[in-house]
């Protein structure tokens, strides 16, 4: 008589374990070859495991619901002749043969007879096959390693251990992770979070919130987006930047936009205005004070470049740099932060395709250039690559009619697309 160990076979690609869902036998049952032993379920299917041998079941392993690793012993069967248990034993960790413990009757510190120190049959450095571990076998690793494995969602019993007694060393865990081993039965590695934190909205954030709320509540916005070809403007900008002298600042798109605005606003004075809606009075300004929407560490601020109509391109660039830096540093003066008559809001490369800018109340218009991108454009029957930028804008529809808004933006577009017009008197 021998013992046959029926192990959970490889039930499918990438399946490292399966759940015991139903037993068809119990210890003591005689069984025939091909008779059902147990049903196991993988994430793919339920599989009926049949006996490869005739015999009598002597033991079954795994309660219903237990996850069994591939290779784990499911059933022990007593069979005629030799089973497979003996040959299996070589896989098992060789048991060291401890000498019989000397009798403890003589506890005096006498020198013990020198024993030949045989190379101890320490089962060290022989990775213990993962299939051989039980989930409840403890300890599998030192506490720090156990904690790290748990945080990674790796059940340690599947990690081959090279330490003494099959202990999983930190390096074993690293290797397991590096090998990208499919870790079965791993729930999400991120712990679900339910935290809700409360933050009092105060200071600048409250100011922003109030301003935005006020603007959206009071102003019926009309948003208009037009596409501009900025190839020429960009070429001019690049050339000016390349040949600028030491005291001249680097030019961004903003000073060009400001110059173009000043030009266009001359024909659309109602766009460069502040509407006191409580009083029902529109203040149209001769001066162009341009608000520059600026991201600061505390949040959105709108410092103002005053009298843009009196500034040339370089001075505009200098002023934009000065007021936005002051806003970011928190050194802006009160007059740097108020009195704008129109605002530009640009996110530069983050500008996206379209925005629906919120008007800086009590102004009546805001201009939001979007990002510049190279696009194929059909010109005269040919496709050419042009630098294209969308120009988003919002207007207070109480003051600015759609027709006027569109006309204003078309004027602006013409200036931007043919930058020579900006500088022509």
């Amino acid at each position: 008589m021998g013992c046959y160990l029926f192990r959970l076979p490889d039930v499918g690609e990438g399946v490292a374990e399966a759940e015991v869902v139903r037993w068809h036998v119990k210890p003591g049952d005689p069984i025939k070859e091909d008779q059902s032993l147990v049903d196991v379920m993988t994430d793919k299917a339920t599989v009926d495991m049949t006996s490869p041998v005739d015999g009598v079941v002597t033991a079954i392993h795994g309660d219903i619901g237990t996850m069994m690793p591939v290779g784990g012993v499911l059933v022990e069967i007593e069979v005629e002749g030799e089973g497979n248990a003996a040959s299996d034993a070589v896989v098992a960790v060789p048991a060291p043969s401890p000498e019989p413990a000397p009798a403890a009757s003589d506890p005096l510190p006498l020198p013990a007879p020198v024993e030949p120190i045989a190379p101890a049959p320490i089962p060290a450095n022989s990775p213990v096959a993962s299939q051989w571990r039980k989930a409840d076998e403890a300890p599998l690793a030192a506490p720090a390693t156990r904690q790290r494995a748990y945080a990674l969602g790796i059940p340690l019993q599947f990690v081959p251990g090279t330490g003494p007694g099959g202990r999983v060393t930190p390096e074993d865990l690293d290797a397991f992770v590096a090998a990208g081993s499919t870790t079965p039965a791993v729930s999400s590695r991120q712990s679900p979070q339910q935290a809700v934190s409360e933050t009092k909205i105060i200071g600048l954030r409250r100011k922003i919130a109030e301003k935005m709320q006020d603007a959206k509540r009071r102003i019926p916005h009309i948003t208009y987006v037009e596409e501009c070809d900025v190839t020429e403007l960009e070429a001019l900008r690049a050339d000016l930047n390349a040949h600028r002298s030491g005291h001249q600042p680097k030019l961004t798109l903003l000073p060009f936009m400001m110059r173009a605005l000043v030009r266009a606003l001359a024909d659309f004075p109602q766009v460069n205005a502040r509407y006191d809606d409580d009083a029902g009075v529109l203040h149209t300004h001769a001066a162009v004070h341009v608000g520059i929407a600026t991201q600061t560490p505390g949040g959105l601020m709108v410092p103002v470049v005053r009298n843009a109509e009196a500034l040339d391109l370089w001075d505009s660039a200098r002023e934009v740099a000065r007021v936005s830096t002051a806003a970011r540093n928190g050194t802006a003066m009160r007059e740097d932060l108020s009195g704008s008559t129109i605002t530009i809001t640009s996110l530069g490369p983050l500008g996206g395709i379209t925005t629906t800018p919120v008007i800086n109340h009590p102004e009546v218009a805001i201009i939001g250039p979007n990002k510049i991108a190279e696009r194929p454009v059909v010109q005269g029957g040919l496709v050419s690559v042009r630098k294209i930028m969308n120009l988003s804008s919002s207007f207070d529809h109480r003051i600015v009619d759609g027709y006027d808004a569109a006309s204003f933006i078309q004027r602006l577009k013409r200036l931007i697309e043919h930058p020579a017009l900006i500088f022509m008197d």
Partner: protein
Amino acid sequence: MGETLKAKVLVVGGGPGGYVAAIRAGQLGLDTVLVEADRLGGTCLVRGCIPSKALIHAAGLYEEMTAATEGRFGIRLDSPPRLDFAETIAWKEGIVDRLNGGVSALLKRAKVRVVNGHASFTDAKTCSVATSDGSLTVVAEHVVLATGSLPVELPFLPFGGKVISSTEALALAEVPKRLVVVGAGYIGLELGIAYAKLGAEVSIVEAQDRILPVYDVKLVEPVRRWLDTHGVALHLGAKARGQRGEGLEIESASGEQLILAADRILLTVGRRPNSEGWGRERMALEMDGAFVRVNDHCATSTTNVWAIGDLTGEPMLAHKASAQGEMVAEIIAGARRRFMPVAIPAVCFTEPEIVSVGLSPDKVLEGVDVVVGQFPFQANGRALSMDAGNDGGFVRVIARKADHRILGIQGVGRYISELAGEFTMLVEMGAVLEDVAGIIHAHPTLGEATHEASLKALGHAIHV
């Protein structure tokens, strides 16, 4: 209703579970409130571990000096030492005060708001606290229950008068002439032995047929021997019946009715979780008997209500509560943690002391082959030089035969409590016998016994 406090974490109970949870939560930047009705430190610090150890130390010193009147190591006192027990108790109180102040300072440093008063939950996340300044409401996102445990009372032996619990035993005005201890668990034995050393005539009544029933017979034998040789009367297999005449009536193992004369009857028959009286029933918590049911994250059945320590089950030990408290704080802060110690060490400060970590030979599962190595302190030089080698003490290591993995270490002997760290470390790190064999243990120290016991299990101990 008065003021309302809002917090991320509310910890109820300032014992070794609760205050550790609160400090860790504070360290992790969580806005934390700790509510404690009594003094900070809990049973452990105020009326348990710490004060009892102080009393045991003083008792040991008194016993040694008493022994010196007969002459010992060439030291002889001409007259017996005088005991001013009130001063002993005051000294003990001083230690408690110091630690209590320490806990308070640590909580403050961790920016934990401490509310002194009794907490009563109105729902799972809201509790009202009756403070000396009136009622206060605390609302929190997470609640950590750490209410601890209380001494068990017997219906026929209610506390009061002569009948005292361990709490009163640590603050007696004088050493009782005759002390009867009911219950031979570790609390009863520690205090019983201390009072025996202080000169009380001590008898111990235990319903089971042995002392310290949670440990194996061999491990507790040296303690039993000490009781035997120091005139402590042991009534095993005996049942306490109630107060009669001059003391306690018991029914002995043979069915005899005896009356044990007593000035004090110390009842130490166990502790029960403090799961009543603070609104648990309004928190929808699933129970596990008298304990609050928790999973291995210490989560209760109610979301974001956590429970730690004695409230959640055995073993009722301070260090278990602390470990759980630390873990829960980290989980609340978003870490992925699980309570998964291999072993929780247990220490008895009896005479001699006992340490038990992990598996003991009597608990080895069927089918697991083990090797056991035991080394007596009788063969340890340091033990002999401290007069700690003649009480039958030893260290015992249990390892799995197949791979020599250490599954448990126990020991009994004077001063052995300090070896608890190494024992636990070896079990928890998954050490094998060869690891211990390869670690040089300083000579002469008691720790050498651990080394030798491991060598013995490997079959080549040097000094036995």
